[in-house]
């Protein structure tokens, strides 16, 4: 068996085994459907309520995309400011670390109160979740350049912007993508958490409704849809990484 095939087959086998054990446990112990549904029931709901789920996936997807985009763009911009103005970094980086330790999920209700009930608070929460990991990685990537390469740029009389675009930015890309892969799934979590509070649409809202109605089939189906979306999002970023970071021996 080829190594590649093995890499695909092994996790797939594990997934199928878990589903089988889940089905068996639910069946043997006679667990009521409203507590834990069987995977077959979840699959059936997924097909039956596909249009409902899809309709609710769109806002969640849009919010996580927007949050991902805004949050990462802001942290890339701030990291760029930090590496060029040391005083700004010394002033704000410790502050950023403190703010980062505030659990975003816990402040979600505050943001909803402040920003109203439309898409805005969800996008903001998703953006905030993406912001800090990317900021930390980006600062590291932009500043951890080979000191001799930096001296080379000075020998060549390179300007600050040339040093940035020809050296620092490239140097930061592997660090950036490592953060983006985390941010992709984190932004989905952010959007869903935002939808938990007083929302009428989105996967988060669907989860809350299904829970209140003891409709566990729909609950699990909604979670599955969010999972699939989150995985696809991460895979897309990995794909992009392989296109962009062609030089790194670890990737590819």
């Amino acid at each position, binding site marked *: 068996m080829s190594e590649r095939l093995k890499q695909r087959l092994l996790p797939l086998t594990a997934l199928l085994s878990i589903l089988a054990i889940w089905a068996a446990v639910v069946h043997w112990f006679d667990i009521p459907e409203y507590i834990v549904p069987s995977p077959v029931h979840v699959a059936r709901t997924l097909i039956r309520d596909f249009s409902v789920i899809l309709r609710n996936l769109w806002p969640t997807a849009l919010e996580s995309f927007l949050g991902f985009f805004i949050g990462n763009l802001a942290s890339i911009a701030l990291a760029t400011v930090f590496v060029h103005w040391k005083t700004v970094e010394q002033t704000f980086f410790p502050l950023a670390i403190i703010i980062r330790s505030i659990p975003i999920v816990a402040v979600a209700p505050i943001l909803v109160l402040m920003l109203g009930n439309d898409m805005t608070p969800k996008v903001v929460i998703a953006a905030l979740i993406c912001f800090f990991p990317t900021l930390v990685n980006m600062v590291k990537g932009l500043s951890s350049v080979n000191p001799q390469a930096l001296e080379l740029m000075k020998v060549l*009389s390179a300007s600050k912007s040339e040093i940035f675009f020809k050296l620092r930015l490239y140097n930061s890309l592997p660090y950036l993508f490592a953060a983006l892969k985390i941010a992709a799934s984190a932004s989905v979590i952010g959007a869903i958490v935002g939808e938990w509070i007083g929302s009428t649409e989105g996967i988060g809202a669907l989860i809350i409704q299904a829970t209140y109605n003891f409709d566990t089939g729909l609950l699990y189906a909604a979670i599955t849809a969010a999972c699939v979306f989150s995985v696809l999002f991460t895979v897309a970023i990995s794909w992009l990484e392989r296109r962009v970071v062609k030089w790194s021996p670890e990737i590819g």
Partner: protein
Amino acid sequence: MSALSESVSVDNVSVRFDSDRGTVTAIESISFELARGAFLSILGPSGCGKSTLLRVVADLIPPSGGDVSLFGSTPAEVRKRRDLGFVFQDAALLPWRTARQNVELPMEVGDGANLAKGGPSASDLLELVGLGKWHDSYPHELSGGMRQRVSIARSLVTAPKILLMDEPFGALDEITRDRLNEELLRIWRETGTTILFVTHSIQEALYLGQKVLVLASHPGRVREMNEPDLPDERGLDIRESAEFVRQAAHLRALLETC
């Protein structure tokens, strides 16, 4: 002595570093003169200020005292004109650029594009350092010795009048180092550029240099400007000659009392 505009002149140069723990004098009152087109080896114990001296000549750090003149100009002027090349111990290639793109870097930054003076092409230079087949390889696909060749090609792409090399072969095995030493001498003869070459190795210093500047440490200062009586046309077998062996013993004795 040659006219000032035709030589490298280091006059009474000192460098002091201020830190929290006080002032370190890295080099003190170093003076020497070198004719255009010469090859100078700089030899000395670790920490004696060899890298610091090269950095002053390259205008990467300012001297605390004294003057450097390169062919009648200041190092800053020479650097801006792209008449100065620098080769680092770690090849310092940019990993996201192929060998050829690395060699072309100097023409893309600063005034490089405007100053393109019909010098050698990247392909010619890669050919010159024996990497004709490796133009499109990324640094991680090359061995340490090959990377260092790319970095030498990069330093030559501006056709510099002076080339500063800071232990470029320090991390390589002996066989590779020997081969690159031979190649460097060939390149030096073909290009006629002035070379300042820092090394820890007595053999390397003697084999490459027409002159060997020996530094003493704490603070770094000139111990001796040595001019061995060896033929300019030389192969690696020169290292077995009586004069070479005698000079090597002399340099070793000097270093041991530095």
